[in-house]
Protein backbone atom coordinates (compact mmCIF):
# COMPACT_ATOMS: atom_id res chain seq x y z
CA UNK A 1 0.00 0.00 0.00
CA UNK A 2 1.11 3.55 -0.61
CA UNK A 3 0.50 6.30 1.91
CA UNK A 4 0.30 10.08 2.00
CA UNK A 5 0.97 11.76 5.33
CA UNK A 6 -0.48 15.21 4.75
CA UNK A 7 0.62 16.70 8.05
CA UNK A 8 4.05 15.96 9.46
CA UNK A 9 6.83 18.24 10.69
CA UNK A 10 9.80 16.51 9.11
CA UNK A 11 12.27 19.24 10.12
CA UNK A 12 12.04 17.73 13.60
CA UNK A 13 12.56 14.16 12.47
CA UNK A 14 15.66 12.12 11.79
CA UNK A 15 16.84 10.27 8.71
CA UNK A 16 15.90 7.03 10.51
CA UNK A 17 12.33 8.26 10.35
CA UNK A 18 12.62 9.01 6.65
CA UNK A 19 14.01 5.52 6.04
CA UNK A 20 11.27 3.84 8.06
CA UNK A 21 8.59 5.95 6.41
CA UNK A 22 9.83 5.08 2.93
CA UNK A 23 10.04 1.42 3.89
CA UNK A 24 6.47 1.57 5.26
CA UNK A 25 5.17 2.88 1.94
CA UNK A 26 4.87 6.61 2.64
CA UNK A 27 5.37 8.25 -0.72
CA UNK A 28 4.39 11.84 -0.05
CA UNK A 29 4.24 14.23 2.88
CA UNK A 30 3.05 17.73 3.56
CA UNK A 31 5.00 19.73 6.11
CA UNK A 32 2.90 22.58 7.43
CA UNK A 33 4.65 25.66 8.75
CA UNK A 34 4.26 25.75 12.51
CA UNK A 35 6.15 27.00 15.54
CA UNK A 36 9.40 25.50 16.75
CA UNK A 37 8.32 24.36 20.20
CA UNK A 38 9.39 27.72 21.56
CA UNK A 39 8.51 31.19 20.32
CA UNK A 40 10.60 32.85 17.63
CA UNK A 41 12.21 36.13 18.57
CA UNK A 42 12.66 37.82 15.20
CA UNK A 43 11.42 37.72 11.65
CA UNK A 44 14.69 36.34 10.32
CA UNK A 45 13.85 33.14 12.11
CA UNK A 46 10.66 32.85 10.04
CA UNK A 47 12.59 33.55 6.84
CA UNK A 48 15.10 30.78 7.46
CA UNK A 49 12.38 28.37 8.56
CA UNK A 50 10.19 28.98 5.51
CA UNK A 51 13.25 28.76 3.28
CA UNK A 52 14.18 25.42 4.81
CA UNK A 53 10.67 24.06 4.15
CA UNK A 54 10.94 24.79 0.43
CA UNK A 55 14.65 24.04 0.23
CA UNK A 56 16.65 21.75 2.43
CA UNK A 57 13.76 19.69 3.79
CA UNK A 58 12.38 19.12 0.31
CA UNK A 59 15.78 17.90 -0.79
CA UNK A 60 16.22 15.73 2.30
CA UNK A 61 12.92 13.95 1.61
CA UNK A 62 13.80 13.39 -2.04
CA UNK A 63 16.82 11.36 -0.96
CA UNK A 64 14.39 8.78 0.39
CA UNK A 65 12.07 8.79 -2.60
CA UNK A 66 9.46 10.78 -0.66
CA UNK A 67 7.77 13.76 -2.31
CA UNK A 68 7.79 16.70 0.11
CA UNK A 69 5.21 19.46 -0.12
CA UNK A 70 4.61 22.15 2.44
CA UNK A 71 2.24 24.83 3.59
CA UNK A 72 3.26 28.35 4.48
CA UNK A 73 1.58 30.39 7.19
CA UNK A 74 1.91 32.18 10.50
CA UNK A 75 0.72 29.84 13.24
CA UNK A 76 -1.84 30.70 15.86
CA UNK A 77 0.48 30.61 18.86
CA UNK A 78 2.89 33.15 17.41
CA UNK A 79 0.02 35.27 16.11
CA UNK A 80 -0.16 36.59 19.66
CA UNK A 81 3.17 38.36 19.30
CA UNK A 82 1.47 41.01 17.21
CA UNK A 83 4.48 42.99 16.01
CA UNK A 84 6.39 39.92 14.98
CA UNK A 85 3.32 38.32 13.42
CA UNK A 86 2.79 41.36 11.20
CA UNK A 87 6.36 41.19 10.01
CA UNK A 88 6.01 37.47 9.35
CA UNK A 89 2.79 38.02 7.39
CA UNK A 90 4.69 40.30 5.05
CA UNK A 91 6.75 37.28 4.04
CA UNK A 92 3.74 35.36 2.75
CA UNK A 93 3.98 36.53 -0.87
CA UNK A 94 7.68 35.61 -0.92
CA UNK A 95 7.07 31.99 0.06
CA UNK A 96 3.44 30.98 -0.39
CA UNK A 97 3.53 31.02 -4.18
CA UNK A 98 6.50 28.69 -4.50
CA UNK A 99 6.48 25.36 -6.27
CA UNK A 100 5.18 22.62 -3.98
CA UNK A 101 3.46 24.96 -1.52
CA UNK A 102 0.07 23.27 -1.45
CA UNK A 103 -1.80 25.46 1.04
CA UNK A 104 -1.77 28.33 3.45
CA UNK A 105 -1.37 26.72 6.85
CA UNK A 106 -1.39 25.61 9.43
CA UNK A 107 -3.34 28.61 10.59
CA UNK A 108 -6.28 29.13 12.92
CA UNK A 109 -6.81 29.45 16.63
CA UNK A 110 -4.95 28.47 19.76
CA UNK A 111 -6.57 30.49 22.54
CA UNK A 112 -9.03 32.30 20.27
CA UNK A 113 -7.63 35.74 21.03
CA UNK A 114 -8.37 38.79 18.86
CA UNK A 115 -4.73 38.76 17.70
CA UNK A 116 -5.12 35.18 16.50
CA UNK A 117 -8.31 36.04 14.72
CA UNK A 118 -6.75 38.97 12.91
CA UNK A 119 -3.80 36.89 11.69
CA UNK A 120 -6.16 34.05 10.70
CA UNK A 121 -8.42 36.37 8.72
CA UNK A 122 -5.51 38.08 7.02
CA UNK A 123 -4.19 34.72 5.81
CA UNK A 124 -7.60 33.46 4.76
CA UNK A 125 -7.88 36.57 2.62
CA UNK A 126 -4.47 35.87 1.10
CA UNK A 127 -5.63 32.34 0.29
CA UNK A 128 -8.83 33.61 -1.34
CA UNK A 129 -6.91 36.21 -3.35
CA UNK A 130 -4.53 33.55 -4.65
CA UNK A 131 -7.05 30.72 -5.01
CA UNK A 132 -5.25 28.56 -2.48
CA UNK A 133 -6.19 25.64 -0.23
CA UNK A 134 -6.23 26.35 3.53
CA UNK A 135 -5.06 23.97 6.25
CA UNK A 136 -6.56 24.84 9.61
CA UNK A 137 -5.06 23.88 12.95
CA UNK A 138 -7.85 23.61 15.51
CA UNK A 139 -7.21 24.37 19.18
CA UNK A 140 -6.54 21.72 21.81
CA UNK A 141 -8.61 23.57 24.41
CA UNK A 142 -12.22 24.51 23.70
CA UNK A 143 -11.89 22.45 20.53
CA UNK A 144 -15.45 22.13 19.40
CA UNK A 145 -16.09 25.83 19.62
CA UNK A 146 -12.74 26.45 17.91
CA UNK A 147 -13.66 24.19 15.01
CA UNK A 148 -17.00 25.89 14.48
CA UNK A 149 -15.46 29.33 14.64
CA UNK A 150 -12.67 28.37 12.25
CA UNK A 151 -15.21 27.24 9.68
CA UNK A 152 -17.47 30.26 10.13
CA UNK A 153 -14.67 32.77 9.75
CA UNK A 154 -13.26 30.96 6.70
CA UNK A 155 -16.70 31.01 5.13
CA UNK A 156 -17.14 34.72 5.90
CA UNK A 157 -13.87 35.54 4.18
CA UNK A 158 -14.95 33.53 1.16
CA UNK A 159 -12.91 30.33 1.28
CA UNK A 160 -14.75 27.68 -0.75
CA UNK A 161 -15.48 24.76 1.55
CA UNK A 162 -13.85 22.27 -0.82
CA UNK A 163 -10.59 24.17 -0.35
CA UNK A 164 -10.76 24.07 3.44
CA UNK A 165 -9.06 21.31 5.45
CA UNK A 166 -9.87 21.31 9.15
CA UNK A 167 -7.27 19.33 11.06
CA UNK A 168 -7.00 17.69 14.49
CA UNK A 169 -10.63 16.60 14.57
CA UNK A 170 -12.21 14.13 16.96
CA UNK A 171 -15.53 12.36 17.44
CA UNK A 172 -17.11 15.56 18.67
CA UNK A 173 -16.19 17.74 15.71
CA UNK A 174 -16.25 15.49 12.66
CA UNK A 175 -19.93 15.84 11.85
CA UNK A 176 -19.82 19.66 11.87
CA UNK A 177 -16.87 19.69 9.49
CA UNK A 178 -18.43 17.19 7.10
CA UNK A 179 -21.74 19.05 7.22
CA UNK A 180 -19.95 22.26 6.27
CA UNK A 181 -18.54 20.55 3.18
CA UNK A 182 -14.91 20.88 4.30
CA UNK A 183 -12.29 18.12 4.57
CA UNK A 184 -11.94 16.55 8.02
CA UNK A 185 -8.39 15.57 8.91
CA UNK A 186 -7.45 13.51 11.95
CA UNK A 187 -4.12 13.49 13.69
CA UNK A 188 -3.04 10.13 15.04
CA UNK A 189 -0.89 11.34 17.89
CA UNK A 190 -0.48 9.43 21.10
CA UNK A 191 -2.00 10.77 24.31
CA UNK A 192 -3.24 14.18 23.26
CA UNK A 193 -5.12 13.70 20.03
CA UNK A 194 -6.53 10.66 18.22
CA UNK A 195 -5.51 7.00 18.33
CA UNK A 196 -5.63 4.39 15.58
CA UNK A 197 -8.50 2.47 17.19
CA UNK A 198 -10.74 5.50 17.52
CA UNK A 199 -9.83 6.48 13.97
CA UNK A 200 -10.93 3.08 12.71
CA UNK A 201 -14.30 3.49 14.36
CA UNK A 202 -14.74 6.98 12.90
CA UNK A 203 -14.15 5.65 9.38
CA UNK A 204 -16.59 2.83 10.10
CA UNK A 205 -19.22 5.25 11.32
CA UNK A 206 -18.79 8.19 8.91
CA UNK A 207 -17.38 6.44 5.86
CA UNK A 208 -14.26 7.57 4.00
CA UNK A 209 -15.59 10.59 2.12
CA UNK A 210 -13.54 13.76 2.85
CA UNK A 211 -11.79 12.10 5.79
CA UNK A 212 -8.00 12.31 5.97
CA UNK A 213 -5.59 10.57 8.32
CA UNK A 214 -2.28 12.20 9.27
CA UNK A 215 0.40 11.91 11.95
CA UNK A 216 1.35 15.51 12.78
CA UNK A 217 4.57 13.96 14.03
CA UNK A 218 6.91 16.68 15.28
CA UNK A 219 9.39 17.28 18.08
CA UNK A 220 7.01 15.84 20.68
CA UNK A 221 6.41 12.18 21.44
CA UNK A 222 4.77 11.24 18.18
CA UNK A 223 4.92 8.62 15.47
CA UNK A 224 5.84 9.23 11.82
CA UNK A 225 4.37 5.82 10.98
CA UNK A 226 0.91 6.65 12.32
CA UNK A 227 -0.70 6.62 8.89
CA UNK A 228 0.49 3.15 7.79
CA UNK A 229 -0.14 1.74 11.26
CA UNK A 230 -3.68 3.06 11.28
CA UNK A 231 -4.27 1.69 7.79
CA UNK A 232 -3.05 -1.69 8.97
CA UNK A 233 -5.39 -1.63 11.93
CA UNK A 234 -8.30 -0.64 9.70
CA UNK A 235 -7.51 -3.66 7.53
CA UNK A 236 -7.47 -5.93 10.56
CA UNK A 237 -10.77 -4.54 11.75
CA UNK A 238 -12.46 -5.19 8.44
CA UNK A 239 -12.66 -1.69 6.96
CA UNK A 240 -12.99 -1.75 3.16
CA UNK A 241 -9.71 -1.54 1.28
CA UNK A 242 -11.17 1.26 -0.81
CA UNK A 243 -11.97 3.27 2.31
CA UNK A 244 -8.44 2.79 3.61
CA UNK A 245 -6.97 4.01 0.36
CA UNK A 246 -9.19 7.06 0.37
CA UNK A 247 -8.42 8.09 3.94
CA UNK A 248 -4.69 7.30 3.81
CA UNK A 249 -3.83 8.40 0.29
CA UNK A 250 -6.40 9.64 -2.20
CA UNK A 251 -8.38 12.17 -0.16
CA UNK A 252 -5.26 14.06 0.85
CA UNK A 253 -4.12 14.03 -2.76
CA UNK A 254 -7.48 15.27 -4.01
CA UNK A 255 -7.70 18.01 -1.40
CA UNK A 256 -4.22 19.40 -1.85
CA UNK A 257 -3.84 18.78 -5.60
CA UNK A 258 -6.43 21.55 -5.96
CA UNK A 259 -3.44 23.82 -5.40
CA UNK A 260 -2.00 22.80 -8.76
CA UNK A 261 1.27 22.33 -6.86
CA UNK A 262 1.35 18.54 -6.88
CA UNK A 263 2.71 17.00 -10.05
CA UNK A 264 0.31 14.06 -9.82
CA UNK A 265 1.68 12.30 -12.89
CA UNK A 266 5.17 12.40 -11.41
CA UNK A 267 3.97 11.30 -7.98
CA UNK A 268 2.12 8.29 -9.37
CA UNK A 269 5.25 6.94 -11.03
CA UNK A 270 7.00 4.17 -9.16
CA UNK A 271 9.40 5.83 -6.74
CA UNK A 272 12.94 5.97 -8.03
CA UNK A 273 15.89 7.15 -6.03
CA UNK A 274 17.70 9.62 -8.23
CA UNK A 275 21.26 8.36 -8.32
CA UNK A 276 22.61 11.89 -8.33
CA UNK A 277 20.79 12.59 -5.08
CA UNK A 278 21.95 9.73 -2.92
CA UNK A 279 23.86 10.02 0.30
CA UNK A 280 27.57 9.66 -0.21
CA UNK A 281 27.86 6.20 1.24
CA UNK A 282 24.35 5.02 1.94
CA UNK A 283 21.67 3.56 -0.17
CA UNK A 284 18.07 3.78 0.87
CA UNK A 285 16.08 0.67 1.64
CA UNK A 286 13.29 0.21 -0.85
CA UNK A 287 10.57 -2.17 -1.75
CA UNK A 288 10.27 -3.86 1.62
CA UNK A 289 7.06 -4.80 3.25
CA UNK A 290 5.67 -1.95 5.30
CA UNK A 291 7.18 -1.88 8.75
CA UNK A 292 4.17 -2.12 11.00
CA UNK A 293 4.44 -2.31 14.75
CA UNK A 294 1.62 -1.64 17.14
CA UNK A 295 -1.10 0.81 16.24
CA UNK A 296 -0.92 4.04 18.20
CA UNK A 297 -2.77 3.65 21.50
CA UNK A 298 -5.78 5.71 22.31
Amino acid at each position, binding site marked *: MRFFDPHIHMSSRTTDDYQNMAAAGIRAVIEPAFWMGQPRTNVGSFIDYF*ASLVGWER*FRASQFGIAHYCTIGVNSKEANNEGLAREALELL*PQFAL*KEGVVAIGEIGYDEMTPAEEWVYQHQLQFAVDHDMVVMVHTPHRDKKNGVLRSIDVAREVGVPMEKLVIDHNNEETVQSVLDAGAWAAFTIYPNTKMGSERMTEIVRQYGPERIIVDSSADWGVSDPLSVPKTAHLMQERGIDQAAIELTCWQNALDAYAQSGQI*DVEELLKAPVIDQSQRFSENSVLRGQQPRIDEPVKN
Partner: protein
Amino acid sequence: MTEPPNTLLEELLLPRLDDKAQKFWHNARTELAAGCNKSRFAALIALASRYCKRRPLDVSHIERERISTAIPGLTLDEWNLLELLRVALICGRNDLTSAQFAEDYEAQFVYADEGETCALYRALPFLPAGERFAWRAGDGCRTNMLSVFHAIALDSPYPAKHFDDTAWHQLVMKTLFLELPVWRIVGLDERRSAELNRMALDYAEERESAGRSLPIGLWLCFTEHDKNRLTALVERHWHSATAQDRKAIVFGLVRSGLHSQVHTLATSESDAGVAHVIDHTLGGQTQQIHFARLVTD
Protein backbone atom coordinates in the same frame (compact mmCIF):
# COMPACT_ATOMS: atom_id res chain seq x y z
CA MET B 1 29.16 34.46 -29.08
CA THR B 2 27.47 33.92 -32.41
CA GLU B 3 23.98 34.67 -31.14
CA PRO B 4 22.70 36.48 -28.07
CA PRO B 5 21.85 34.12 -25.19
CA ASN B 6 18.31 35.45 -25.03
CA THR B 7 17.56 34.38 -28.56
CA LEU B 8 19.05 30.97 -27.94
CA LEU B 9 17.16 30.48 -24.69
CA GLU B 10 13.87 31.53 -26.24
CA GLU B 11 14.35 29.28 -29.23
CA LEU B 12 15.07 26.33 -26.99
CA LEU B 13 12.12 27.21 -24.80
CA LEU B 14 9.24 27.97 -27.15
CA PRO B 15 8.80 24.58 -28.85
CA ARG B 16 8.68 22.95 -25.41
CA LEU B 17 5.94 25.13 -23.92
CA ASP B 18 2.22 24.45 -24.14
CA ASP B 19 -0.15 27.31 -25.02
CA LYS B 20 -0.69 28.40 -21.44
CA ALA B 21 3.03 28.46 -20.72
CA GLN B 22 3.76 30.31 -23.97
CA LYS B 23 1.31 32.99 -22.95
CA PHE B 24 2.96 33.28 -19.54
CA TRP B 25 6.37 33.56 -21.21
CA HIS B 26 5.29 36.22 -23.70
CA ASN B 27 3.67 38.35 -21.00
CA ALA B 28 6.62 37.93 -18.67
CA ARG B 29 9.11 38.75 -21.40
CA THR B 30 7.26 41.96 -22.20
CA GLU B 31 7.11 42.86 -18.53
CA LEU B 32 10.81 42.16 -17.98
CA ALA B 33 11.85 44.05 -21.09
CA ALA B 34 9.93 47.08 -19.83
CA GLY B 35 11.69 46.79 -16.47
CA CYS B 36 10.12 45.37 -13.31
CA ASN B 37 10.90 45.65 -9.61
CA LYS B 38 12.56 43.09 -7.40
CA SER B 39 9.43 41.55 -5.95
CA ARG B 40 7.77 41.16 -9.35
CA PHE B 41 10.97 39.59 -10.65
CA ALA B 42 10.82 37.13 -7.74
CA ALA B 43 7.15 36.44 -8.36
CA LEU B 44 7.75 35.61 -12.02
CA ILE B 45 10.49 33.15 -11.12
CA ALA B 46 8.22 31.52 -8.52
CA LEU B 47 5.14 31.50 -10.74
CA ALA B 48 7.02 29.73 -13.53
CA SER B 49 6.37 26.48 -11.64
CA ARG B 50 2.65 26.88 -12.37
CA TYR B 51 3.32 26.65 -16.10
CA CYS B 52 6.19 24.21 -16.43
CA LYS B 53 7.06 21.00 -14.67
CA ARG B 54 10.44 19.50 -14.04
CA ARG B 55 10.54 17.52 -17.26
CA PRO B 56 13.75 16.56 -19.07
CA LEU B 57 14.64 18.80 -22.01
CA ASP B 58 15.69 15.98 -24.34
CA VAL B 59 18.16 18.29 -26.05
CA SER B 60 18.66 17.42 -29.72
CA HIS B 61 22.03 17.07 -31.40
CA ILE B 62 21.56 20.31 -33.35
CA GLU B 63 20.55 22.19 -30.19
CA ARG B 64 23.57 20.83 -28.36
CA GLU B 65 25.82 22.20 -31.09
CA ARG B 66 24.19 25.62 -30.95
CA ILE B 67 24.52 25.79 -27.18
CA SER B 68 28.20 24.92 -27.18
CA THR B 69 28.86 27.39 -29.97
CA ALA B 70 27.13 30.17 -28.04
CA ILE B 71 28.75 29.33 -24.70
CA PRO B 72 31.67 26.92 -25.03
CA GLY B 73 31.63 24.20 -22.42
CA LEU B 74 27.97 24.57 -21.56
CA THR B 75 25.60 21.62 -21.89
CA LEU B 76 21.95 21.66 -20.91
CA ASP B 77 21.38 17.91 -21.05
CA GLU B 78 20.53 17.70 -17.36
CA TRP B 79 18.45 20.85 -17.14
CA ASN B 80 14.72 20.50 -16.78
CA LEU B 81 12.12 22.57 -18.56
CA LEU B 82 11.24 24.63 -15.50
CA GLU B 83 14.88 25.57 -15.08
CA LEU B 84 15.11 26.62 -18.70
CA LEU B 85 12.06 28.86 -18.32
CA ARG B 86 13.46 30.41 -15.16
CA VAL B 87 16.87 31.07 -16.70
CA ALA B 88 15.13 32.64 -19.70
CA LEU B 89 13.19 34.87 -17.29
CA ILE B 90 16.36 35.93 -15.50
CA CYS B 91 18.13 36.66 -18.78
CA GLY B 92 15.02 38.43 -20.02
CA ARG B 93 15.77 41.41 -17.80
CA ASN B 94 16.77 44.49 -19.73
CA ASP B 95 19.45 45.53 -17.23
CA LEU B 96 21.70 42.50 -16.80
CA THR B 97 24.85 44.59 -16.57
CA SER B 98 23.45 47.00 -13.99
CA ALA B 99 24.08 47.17 -10.25
CA GLN B 100 20.33 46.91 -9.76
CA PHE B 101 20.25 43.55 -11.49
CA ALA B 102 23.15 42.30 -9.36
CA GLU B 103 21.31 43.38 -6.22
CA ASP B 104 18.01 41.81 -7.31
CA TYR B 105 19.68 38.59 -8.42
CA GLU B 106 21.53 38.25 -5.10
CA ALA B 107 18.31 38.94 -3.19
CA GLN B 108 16.57 36.02 -4.88
CA PHE B 109 18.72 33.53 -2.99
CA VAL B 110 17.24 34.53 0.36
CA TYR B 111 13.76 33.36 -0.58
CA ALA B 112 14.53 30.76 -3.23
CA ASP B 113 13.26 27.21 -2.98
CA GLU B 114 15.36 24.26 -4.08
CA GLY B 115 14.29 24.40 -7.73
CA GLU B 116 14.70 28.17 -7.92
CA THR B 117 18.13 27.99 -6.32
CA CYS B 118 19.25 25.51 -8.99
CA ALA B 119 17.86 27.73 -11.75
CA LEU B 120 19.52 30.86 -10.33
CA TYR B 121 22.86 29.10 -10.45
CA ARG B 122 22.22 27.61 -13.85
CA ALA B 123 21.84 31.17 -15.16
CA LEU B 124 25.45 32.05 -14.23
CA PRO B 125 27.14 31.22 -17.56
CA PHE B 126 24.62 33.46 -19.33
CA LEU B 127 25.17 36.55 -17.18
CA PRO B 128 27.45 39.34 -18.42
CA ALA B 129 30.33 40.36 -16.13
CA GLY B 130 30.06 37.00 -14.44
CA GLU B 131 32.86 37.85 -12.00
CA ARG B 132 30.31 39.85 -10.01
CA PHE B 133 28.79 36.59 -8.76
CA ALA B 134 31.92 34.57 -8.02
CA TRP B 135 31.45 34.80 -4.25
CA ARG B 136 27.80 33.82 -4.57
CA ALA B 137 28.66 30.77 -6.69
CA GLY B 138 31.43 29.76 -4.28
CA ASP B 139 29.02 30.10 -1.39
CA GLY B 140 26.51 28.01 -3.31
CA CYS B 141 29.05 25.20 -3.43
CA ARG B 142 28.90 25.02 0.36
CA THR B 143 25.37 23.62 0.02
CA ASN B 144 24.27 20.29 1.36
CA MET B 145 21.81 19.88 -1.49
CA LEU B 146 23.38 17.79 -4.21
CA SER B 147 20.99 19.21 -6.77
CA VAL B 148 22.27 22.72 -6.06
CA PHE B 149 25.92 21.71 -6.09
CA HIS B 150 25.33 19.89 -9.35
CA ALA B 151 23.77 22.99 -10.90
CA ILE B 152 26.88 25.07 -10.16
CA ALA B 153 29.69 22.60 -10.57
CA LEU B 154 28.93 20.40 -13.56
CA ASP B 155 28.49 21.06 -17.28
CA SER B 156 29.08 24.79 -16.82
CA PRO B 157 32.07 26.88 -17.86
CA TYR B 158 31.40 29.35 -15.04
CA PRO B 159 33.53 27.94 -12.18
CA ALA B 160 36.70 27.42 -14.22
CA LYS B 161 36.37 30.93 -15.56
CA HIS B 162 35.64 32.77 -12.32
CA PHE B 163 36.63 30.75 -9.24
CA ASP B 164 39.86 31.54 -7.42
CA ASP B 165 42.16 28.64 -6.62
CA THR B 166 40.69 27.95 -3.19
CA ALA B 167 37.12 27.81 -4.46
CA TRP B 168 38.16 25.83 -7.52
CA HIS B 169 40.06 23.20 -5.55
CA GLN B 170 37.18 22.87 -3.11
CA LEU B 171 34.77 22.40 -5.99
CA VAL B 172 36.83 19.61 -7.53
CA MET B 173 37.43 17.89 -4.19
CA LYS B 174 33.77 18.13 -3.22
CA THR B 175 32.77 16.63 -6.55
CA LEU B 176 35.06 13.70 -5.81
CA PHE B 177 33.80 13.45 -2.27
CA LEU B 178 30.19 13.33 -3.43
CA GLU B 179 31.14 10.78 -6.09
CA LEU B 180 29.76 12.99 -8.83
CA PRO B 181 31.30 12.79 -12.33
CA VAL B 182 34.47 14.86 -12.09
CA TRP B 183 34.93 14.65 -15.86
CA ARG B 184 31.93 16.92 -16.22
CA ILE B 185 33.65 19.80 -14.42
CA VAL B 186 34.27 22.04 -17.40
CA GLY B 187 37.88 23.20 -17.57
CA LEU B 188 39.35 20.56 -15.30
CA ASP B 189 41.98 19.74 -17.93
CA GLU B 190 43.24 23.30 -17.96
CA ARG B 191 42.98 24.06 -14.25
CA ARG B 192 44.80 21.11 -12.75
CA SER B 193 47.60 22.32 -10.51
CA ALA B 194 50.31 21.20 -8.13
CA GLU B 195 48.02 22.00 -5.21
CA LEU B 196 45.08 20.04 -6.62
CA ASN B 197 47.44 17.16 -7.37
CA ARG B 198 48.55 17.12 -3.73
CA MET B 199 44.99 17.28 -2.47
CA ALA B 200 43.97 14.41 -4.73
CA LEU B 201 46.93 12.29 -3.60
CA ASP B 202 46.13 13.04 0.04
CA TYR B 203 42.52 12.14 -0.57
CA ALA B 204 43.52 8.85 -2.21
CA GLU B 205 45.55 7.94 0.87
CA GLU B 206 42.72 8.95 3.18
CA ARG B 207 40.38 6.62 1.26
CA GLU B 208 42.94 3.82 1.43
CA SER B 209 43.28 4.23 5.19
CA ALA B 210 39.54 4.05 5.55
CA GLY B 211 39.43 0.89 3.45
CA ARG B 212 37.40 2.59 0.73
CA SER B 213 37.75 2.33 -3.01
CA LEU B 214 39.01 5.27 -5.05
CA PRO B 215 36.43 7.22 -7.06
CA ILE B 216 37.17 6.64 -10.70
CA GLY B 217 37.35 10.35 -11.51
CA LEU B 218 40.17 10.82 -9.01
CA TRP B 219 42.65 9.73 -11.68
CA LEU B 220 41.75 12.79 -13.77
CA CYS B 221 43.00 15.18 -11.10
CA PHE B 222 46.68 14.22 -11.13
CA THR B 223 49.53 16.12 -12.73
CA GLU B 224 53.25 15.66 -13.17
CA HIS B 225 54.01 17.43 -9.91
CA ASP B 226 54.61 14.40 -7.70
CA LYS B 227 55.39 11.46 -9.90
CA ASN B 228 56.81 9.34 -7.09
CA ARG B 229 53.68 9.45 -4.99
CA LEU B 230 51.48 8.81 -7.99
CA THR B 231 53.62 5.88 -9.12
CA ALA B 232 53.42 4.38 -5.64
CA LEU B 233 49.64 4.85 -5.60
CA VAL B 234 49.32 3.06 -8.93
CA GLU B 235 51.51 0.23 -7.74
CA ARG B 236 49.24 -0.30 -4.76
CA HIS B 237 46.11 -0.46 -6.92
CA TRP B 238 46.90 -1.80 -10.37
CA HIS B 239 46.87 -5.51 -9.64
CA SER B 240 43.55 -5.54 -7.84
CA ALA B 241 41.90 -2.93 -10.07
CA THR B 242 38.96 -3.76 -12.34
CA ALA B 243 39.40 -3.26 -16.08
CA GLN B 244 37.42 -0.03 -15.80
CA ASP B 245 39.65 1.25 -13.00
CA ARG B 246 42.76 0.27 -14.95
CA LYS B 247 41.54 2.39 -17.84
CA ALA B 248 41.17 5.34 -15.48
CA ILE B 249 44.61 4.72 -13.98
CA VAL B 250 46.10 4.80 -17.47
CA PHE B 251 44.56 8.22 -17.99
CA GLY B 252 46.06 9.41 -14.72
CA LEU B 253 49.51 8.17 -15.63
CA VAL B 254 49.59 9.59 -19.15
CA ARG B 255 48.14 12.92 -18.01
CA SER B 256 50.99 13.08 -15.47
CA GLY B 257 53.68 12.35 -18.01
CA LEU B 258 54.33 8.81 -16.79
CA HIS B 259 54.32 7.29 -20.27
CA SER B 260 57.07 4.79 -19.53
CA GLN B 261 55.05 3.23 -16.70
CA VAL B 262 52.14 2.82 -19.09
CA HIS B 263 54.36 1.10 -21.63
CA THR B 264 55.49 -1.31 -18.93
CA LEU B 265 51.95 -2.03 -17.80
CA ALA B 266 50.91 -2.55 -21.43
CA THR B 267 53.21 -5.55 -21.78
CA SER B 268 51.21 -7.58 -19.27
CA GLU B 269 47.73 -6.22 -20.02
CA SER B 270 45.38 -8.97 -21.20
CA ASP B 271 42.12 -6.99 -21.35
CA ALA B 272 41.45 -5.75 -24.88
CA GLY B 273 39.48 -2.74 -23.63
CA VAL B 274 42.30 -1.57 -21.38
CA ALA B 275 44.85 -2.18 -24.13
CA HIS B 276 42.71 -0.05 -26.41
CA VAL B 277 42.66 2.81 -23.88
CA ILE B 278 46.41 2.53 -23.48
CA ASP B 279 46.86 2.97 -27.23
CA HIS B 280 44.54 5.94 -27.39
CA THR B 281 45.93 7.78 -24.38
CA LEU B 282 49.49 7.29 -25.55
CA GLY B 283 48.25 8.58 -28.88
CA GLY B 284 47.18 11.80 -27.19
CA GLN B 285 43.52 11.22 -26.32
CA THR B 286 43.91 12.12 -22.70
CA GLN B 287 41.36 14.83 -22.17
CA GLN B 288 38.38 14.66 -19.86
CA ILE B 289 36.04 14.40 -22.85
CA HIS B 290 37.82 11.21 -23.83
CA PHE B 291 37.54 9.98 -20.28
CA ALA B 292 33.82 10.77 -20.31
CA ARG B 293 33.33 8.41 -23.27
CA LEU B 294 35.15 5.72 -21.35
CA VAL B 295 32.70 6.03 -18.50
CA THR B 296 29.51 6.39 -20.53
CA ASP B 297 30.22 3.79 -23.23
